[in-house]
């Protein structure tokens, strides 16, 4: 049994965890849920030794843990998979695996041998491994999470902590993964699962602990609770952040999150974006192959697919980072094309810069506040303050640094920046990854409003529910090829087959 008693952790002026008691039993999958900023990541970081608690004790199977040492935690058998994968960017994926448990023993950190040992496990989980020798910096988020899960399992963990692992897994990968978690439970191990998907938490976990504002709001057995109760516990009885047009209570939030039909008819407006016969080759492999589609004003086009099938290349071409090997991209609008990159910490934000400076990364905003080459700092800051209010981004002000924002608020800033630039086309890649129910609903509402106002959205996501709920047209990307999905063909099963390349 792993037990945390009276854990308190303070960061500067905020109390992240306030006397938290948490207990997970052997042979149990324990879900940890809560809003963005509730303290989930802090708690699991304390378990994994990445952070030291200011007060409180950790006990594993009757032995007190020292805390504050990732190495000692690992030796005690506690392994965590974080939401932002912790891999060595400049090393190949095989080398990364060799640095985990696969590299131990006689072969002594031999990357090829480690990869061979990982293969059967990967096959059982239905994970596709990247081409041999690919360095992690060229791997998509999905590929990274899969590598991290494999590496975590290689340590033969007593306690496995997973922070939002399923967000980037394809439906085809999800079932074997959950099956694996159940098997680990059967072997008497402890699995702690941090998730925003309440349905998933209830489906797979035995018990659920709800964190709210750094405190334990409740602990429930899965059989004795419901999604709506969990949502209410997460958000609290009274919503202190309600405002005009916002979601006023938890029930609404859950309802909006589950909306299955788009409320407005697709507006067949003028063409906004045309992508013609796009082919991209790189690292000796074909990343995109004859990708061809067009996007009209008012349309939300969804692209589903297992992460790492060319989505990244497509977004990078649209952002203007790469030129395609062949083919064209035409933006018909006189308004700009805005991109919300998948990896917000690496591509979307500059964490060491202030919030207003991050806002100014958008060219159209930068232009608005530049006169004869001079940046109008005070106006830009004031404007940033307005944006922070409007999008309800919780921060210490326009001049605070982006790394002080929580994951959810970082994402909101990225969305706010994209929309504030008054774009004609919005390319959103995994825009709700790591967002809680309410924030997800808000982002979905923003996307819908943007489209309703005549914007065109390209929504690239691993989350099929999100795509089915929002998109007016849908396509599946698999190994760099785009397959349109007809309106009547939108069954999850059919799409799953397309995603895995079977159909």
């Amino acid at each position: 049994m792993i037990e945390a008693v009276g854990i308190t952790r303070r960061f500067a002026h905020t109390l992240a965890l306030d006397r938290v008691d948490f207990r997970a039993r052997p042979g149990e999958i324990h879900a940890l849920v809560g809003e963005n900023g509730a303290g989930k990541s802090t708690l699991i970081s304390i378990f994994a030794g990445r952070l030291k608690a200011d007060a409180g004790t950790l006990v594993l199977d009757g032995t007190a843990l020292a805390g504050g040492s990732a190495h000692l935690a690992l030796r005690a058998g506690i392994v965590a998979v974080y939401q932002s994968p912790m891999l060595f960017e400049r090393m190949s994926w095989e080398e990364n695996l060799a640095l985990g448990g696969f590299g131990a023993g006689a072969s002594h950190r031999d990357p090829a041998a480690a990869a061979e040992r990982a293969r059967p496990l990967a096959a059982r989980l239905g994970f596709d491994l990247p081409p041999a020798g690919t360095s992690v910096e060229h791997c998509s988020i999905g590929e990274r999470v899969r590598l991290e899960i494999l590496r975590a399992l290689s340590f033969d963990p007593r306690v496995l902590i997973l922070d939002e692992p399923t967000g980037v897994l394809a439906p085809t990968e999800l079932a074997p993964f959950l099956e694996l978690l159940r098997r680990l439970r059967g072997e008497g191990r402890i699995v702690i699962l941090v998730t925003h998907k309440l349905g998933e938490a209830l489906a797979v976990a035995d018990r659920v602990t709800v964190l709210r504002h750094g405190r334990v709001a409740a602990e429930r057995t899965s059989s004795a609770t419901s999604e709506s109760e969990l949502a209410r516990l997460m958000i609290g009885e009274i919503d202190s952040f309600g405002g005009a047009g916002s979601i006023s209570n938890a029930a609404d939030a859950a309802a909006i999150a589950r909306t299955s039909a788009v409320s407005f008819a697709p507006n067949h407006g003028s063409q906004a974006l045309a992508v013609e016969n796009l082919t991209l080759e790189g690292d000796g492999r074909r990343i995109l192959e004859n990708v061809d589609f067009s996007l009209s004003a008012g349309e939300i086009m969804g692209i589903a697919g297992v992460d790492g099938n060319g989505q990244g290349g497509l977004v990078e071409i649209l952002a203007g980072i790469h030129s395609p090997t062949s083919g064209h991209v035409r933006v018909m609008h006189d308004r700009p094309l805005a991109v919300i990159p998948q990896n917000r910490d690496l591509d979307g934000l500059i964490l060491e810069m202030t919030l207003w400076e991050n806002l100014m990364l958008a060219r159209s905003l930068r232009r608005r506040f530049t006169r004869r080459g001079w940046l109008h700092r005070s106006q830009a800051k004031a404007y940033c303050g307005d944006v922070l209010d409007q999008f309800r981004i919780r921060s210490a002000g326009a001049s605070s640094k982006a790394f002080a924002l929580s994951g959810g608020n970082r994402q909101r800033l990225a969305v706010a920046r994209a929309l504030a630039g008054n774009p004609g086309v919005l390319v959103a890649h995994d825009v709700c990854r790591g967002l809680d129910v309410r924030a997800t609903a808000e982002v979905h509402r923003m996307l819908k409003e943007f489209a309703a106002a005549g914007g065109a959205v390209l929504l690239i996501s691993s989350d099929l529910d999100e795509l089915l709920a929002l998109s007016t047209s849908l396509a599946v990307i698999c190994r760099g090829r785009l397959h349109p999905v007809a309106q009547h063909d939108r069954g999850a099963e059919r799409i799953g087959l397309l995603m895995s390349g079977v159909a």
Partner: protein
Amino acid sequence: MTTARKVSSRFAAVFAPLTGARIMAAIRPLAAIAIAALIISIVLIALGASPLAVFADLWQGAFGNWLAATDTLVKTTPLIFTGLAIAIAFQGALWNIGADGQLIVGAMAAGAIGPALGGWPHPIAILTMLALGAIGGALWGGLAGWLRARREVNEVICTIMLNFVAAQMLSWAVHGPLMERSRSFPQSTMIAPNAQLAFYFQPSRLNCGMIVAVLLAVACNLMLFHSAVGFELRALGRNRRASAFFGLPIRRLTVGVMALSGALAGIGGAVQVSAITHRLFETMSPGWGYEAIAVALVARLNPLAIVPAALLFGALDNGSQAMQRAHGVSPELVYIIQGMVIIVLVAFDAVASSGLRDAFFGAGDNVTAAPDVMAEAGDA
């Protein structure tokens, strides 16, 4: 009229009121110097010398009288130029180690054309000298930038190698095409008198170069923190990938920043020729381009802070010579002091910038991911 007010408000912003954070930022280097001095004192006592006497000599040599003080300023001037060059490049995460070579090429350009400026009015001749220095340095720095932007050549290696090329080019030039007419020494012809920055305070060698340096520091500060280009440069330096995603002109910036960096160092070279040496010698720089890296780091890449940081190093350089003359204390001791100041400052800096992150270091291997946890706490 409004433009004038805007500009003046912008200048006001540069000299913003001292807030708590600003005072702390100013105190930190002073505290570091004090701690470094303390450690040196222990060493001196162990060696049987009196720390107070040594430091008094150091001070005496650096600021003890008018001549010493002005000579300190003369030694500080090239360090400001090269320090600014390094700070601007490092702000863009372009690791220009080549300020020395850029300074030399700037000096060569000014020294080669300088003798021909005899008929020109004094201010025009001086400005021409500075412009020649800027162009020479910009070409040398811009070359490294262009290789980085076009061919992904590592600018560290490239600029170090270009330092050697510049030094040998200078040596060849003063033995060959630029050698003085009498051919007696390996030095170039004296530049025209009206291309020389006059010594207004003789016998001191104090000249206007210092003023140019300080003005450039203010200009760099405005550029870096108040202009759109400066913003793009800082964004590039902090996250190249995000900069690419948001369509910053990365190649143009890379070439431009390296050229600007080189130009600053090159102006330093031109000032040196114009004000101090009046001609080219085989060794124009005692390693200012390298010392500048220390200056820039102590100044934490802030252009305005370059001025006091360069003054510190200039004073240590100058004071050490006097110390050696007076007491026979080895000037190497000064290098030890300089080294200690840098180490202590960097140590202070790590503590300060990681105030919130301290817990993560040593635990995570992915620094970009580490703040996630803390951030979640940020609004808990």
